[in-house]
Structure formats: C-alpha cells, structure tokens
C-alpha cells in the first residue's frame, strides 16, 4: 500500500491535536512549552510531506523557517520563565491569576 500525502497530513493533524491537548492540559509552563513545540513539529511534517509530493522546495523552506521560529521562541520563552521563576519561585500557571475579569 502506498503512502500518500494524506497519510502524512493525517499524521500531522493527529500530532497537532496531541499538541493541542498538551497546551490545554499542562499547568507547568515548561511542559506547556513542550506542547507548543509539538504543534510546530506537527506542521513541519506536513510541510515536508507536501513539498515531497508536490515536488516543490517551498514547503521545506517553510519548515526551515518554522524551526528557526521555534528556536527563537524557546529563547524568549525561557527568558520569561526565568524572570518569573526568580520572582515567584514557581512556574505553575495556576498562580498567575492576579489579573482577571
């Protein structure tokens, strides 16, 4: 049986959904960031697959830039987490509710 683009896309979609579950579920911010990485990675599979099946490099380029973005996000995200941690000693997002309403 042949593996088609649809297979990859479905995989991509499933992984994305897993990422979504993680994003919704995680209370520990660091773990939450893991989940956002999953989202981007899921997309990357899709891009690479499309590039392959369309025989077009653009998809790979997109995936490449997404990796760059993911990396930058990690840097900034960790920076934010560090200051937050220094201030509160926790990285649990449930304590982050000083603003509401």
């Amino acid at each position, binding site marked *: *049986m042949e593996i*088609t683009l*649809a*297979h*990859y*896309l479905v*995989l991509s*979609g*499933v*992984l*994305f*959904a*897993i990422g*979504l*579950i*993680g994003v*919704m*579920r995680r*209370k*520990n911010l*660091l*773990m939450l960031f*893991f*989940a956002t*990485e*999953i989202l981007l*990675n899921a997309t*990357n*599979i899709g891009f*690479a*697959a499309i590039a*392959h099946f*369309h*025989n*077009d*490099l*653009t998809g*790979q*380029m997109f*995936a*490449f*830039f997404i*990796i*760059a973005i*993911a*990396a*930058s996000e*990690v*840097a*900034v995200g*960790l*920076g*934010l*987490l*560090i*200051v937050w*941690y*220094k*201030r509160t000693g926790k*990285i649990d997002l449930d304590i982050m509710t000083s603003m509401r309403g």
Partner: protein
Amino acid sequence: MFEAIAFYLFAALTIGMFTITVMTSQALYALTAMASGMIFISAFFFMLGADFLGVVQIIVYTGAVMALYAFGMMFFDTTRTLVEKQNNPRIIFVLGVMAATLIVFILVSPIISTNLEARYPIEAAVGNSQAIGLVLFTKFLVPFELAAVMLLVAMIAGIVLAGKKMDKSLTLMAEEEIALMSATQAPKDTEEEGAH
C-alpha cells in the same frame, strides 16, 4: 512497502512519544520523550527527501532546543513529579479528540486541485542541501535575513530578561531609592528585591 512500514513505525513512535510528552507526570520522561519524538520526526524528513531539514531538525531541536529545555528544567527544579491540578480534564480530551477528528476528516479526502504547480521543483540530480541553499539565498534571502534579526531579537530578549539587572525593579522603587542607589553605585546591602 518499505516506505509504508517505515511510515507506520515512525508514525506510531512519534505519536507515542508525543503522547508521553503531553501526558506524563514525570518531567524527565516528558523531556526525553520529546527529544526522541523530534528525532523520529527527522526520520520522516529523511524519508521525504528533505535531508537538510532532517539535519537541521536534529541539530537545532535535539541539540539546541532540548539542551535549553534541559537547562531550564534544572533551573526550575522540575525534575520531580509534576503536580498539575486539572479542574476539568474531560473537556480537554473532548476538544482534542474533536479537533483531531475534524482535521482528519478533511485531510483524508484527496486533494483534487488541478492547478498545482511547483514553483521551485525538486530536481533529482541536485542534492537537497544544494537546492535549498540556492533557493534560500535567492528567493528566501530576505526572510532568511529577517530570521537572523529574529534570532538576534530572541537573543537580546533572552539575555536581558534573564540578566541580573532584572533583579531590582526600578518600576517598583520609589524615586528616592533609585537616586540613592545610583549615588552609591548599587551596593549589595540595599538589594531589596520585590519591595512589594
């Protein structure tokens, strides 16, 4: 056939790994599972002929990002069991499963577009990295440079935020305290972080 086996194998592995990442209550498991998930993804890249991407994936993710996360975990002391209070776990899974089902429902149907055309076709004769290099430094030169700026921004942001200067908040200090502090060139004993 080989392709199929490889696909299903890696798909299962990736899904498994990521599920662990998302579901486990052990931070270390999560980290490890994600790292391996990333590597399995690079396998897909290789399978799809995106060698360059595969390499970048391993280097950037498994090398840089994961290292950062590992550092973060140590810093935040999250190696223990995570305690995460879920006030309504069911809704999360309902939403997740729904999203997955819906996306899959559409994605399984074949694409019937007839006007697809490859703008930058992959030529078999050319190595993937070479081709990418060519495209990257012509068509995608500007985004590439911009990505560099973005990384610079991320770097500055990371450095500034994690820097020691953030320990004392001028925002929260009264004007007199600031004046005093700059006059005495920040002696250590006046460090009253978080006056609130």
